[in-house]
């Protein structure tokens, strides 16, 4: 349920990303909103198991491949790797505060760009390893949007937390039975 809701939110972010060009003054680079979702899932190891983080990463990448017209599998592979990398990093680094969140989004965007270019070169050798010059600008845009998007995702994820949902359901049942329930 939570993974599905996360994917729907992720898909909306991807669709937003696909139309953000309409507003952008420089029509070349867009912030990687889908990647932020993957980073969020990876950086919340206490809420997401490795398999669910990996599945969300894979599905987000797969959807991104379809939405963006990129060869299938490129973003699926990269986002999957990013989700697991973010998870590995999250055990050693507590990402708190605006600056650290923005920095994390920036670094994640750079790493993802590098991986995308490498994977792209493997499946279409004629494209070479070019394209990384755009990565810093893309990273900056992603970093600028990182803190608000990560905050929003944390809020949504908090509402969809199975434990909280159970508490909410129990409270609603108790209220329906007229028994009431002490506030947490």
């Amino acid at each position: 349920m939570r993974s599905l809701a996360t994917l729907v939110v992720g898909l909306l972010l991807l669709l937003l990303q696909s139309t953000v060009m309409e507003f952008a003054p420089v029509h070349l680079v867009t912030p990687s909103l889908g990647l932020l979702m993957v980073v969020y899932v990876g950086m919340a190891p206490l809420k997401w198991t490795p398999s669910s983080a990996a599945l969300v990463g894979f599905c987000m990448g797969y959807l991104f491949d379809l939405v963006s017209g990129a060869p299938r599998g490129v973003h699926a592979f990269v986002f999957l790797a990013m989700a697991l990398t973010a998870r590995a990093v999250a055990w050693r680094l507590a990402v708190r505060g605006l600056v650290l969140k923005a920095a994390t989004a920036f670094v994640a965007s750079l790493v993802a760009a590098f991986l995308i270019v490498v994977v792209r070169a493997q499946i279409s050798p004629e494209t070479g390893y070019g394209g990384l010059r755009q990565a810093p600008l893309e990273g900056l845009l992603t970093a600028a949007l990182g803190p608000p998007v990560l905050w929003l995702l944390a809020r949504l994820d908090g509402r969809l937390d199975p434990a909280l949902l159970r508490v909410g359901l129990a409270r609603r049942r108790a209220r329906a039975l007229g028994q009431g329930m002490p506030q947490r």
Partner: protein
Amino acid sequence: MFPTGHRQKVREVVIVAAAFVVSLFLLRQSARSPEYLSPLDRGILTLVSPVQSAFATLARSLGRFAGRYVDLVHVRAENEGLRIENGRLRSELLQAKRDAAESVRYQHLLGLRDAVTAETLVARVIAIDVSPYFRVARIQLDRGEGLVQRGMPVITSEGVVGRINRTSGETSDILLAVDPRSAIDVVLPRTGGRGILKGKPGENGYRCAIEYLMQGEQARDGDVVATSGLGGFPRDLPVGRVSKLVKNSAGLTQDIEVTPDVDFGRLSEVLVVVAPPPSADPEAGKKPLQSSHGLTVYR
């Protein structure tokens, strides 16, 4: 039987490994047949495309609204007394200009459609360059679903846009001429020299390069580049202008950087050439197929 904790760990590892295996399988499939879309892909695209189209329409409307708002703020700063009247007139003028520009664009498109003897379909661009590492645009056809096939040329009144890369229902992906995977046969009308136009990887701007042009052809800065008529594109369509020359002293060829005439960032409507022009080079219509709609199409 494994203890629960161990079993859980095994389950986690299996799922993660399966995800990696599936993604590697997808990559292998993409390398072999980039145009292939599975029924699942088509299903997802069928669900997503209308939402994507609605997002694009909403984004354009919001963009117009924001533009009007910015204009109004600007006028207020200039003259408070005339703000309301001036703002209204300006926004009306802006709207009229937009309408006129749109009308001109449509006229150009219609003019091009009349001028190009090939059979074409009009399509609306609903997304472009979602990933900066793949120069791809997504279009939606109003009619003619099923006629569009991989490899078909896409053009506008400004010039060459690219080729259809893959299709699903009424939406199709265009591999833009600025993508390194794209290859279009072009000619320099001034010298008659021919070469292959390819996108330049790693460029912040939209740039292409002509490869395999003989040194003897002596291209110059500012030279017009046009389609040769081979590969399905109508002959003499504008492609761009030579902006930089890189001579290869060791070989016989020279690499030529081309700035495209088409502003890819502002694409809104395009024409898909679904049937080659009758007078085109024989190679253009090499493999004609008779479609169910009575139009001749090719792969």
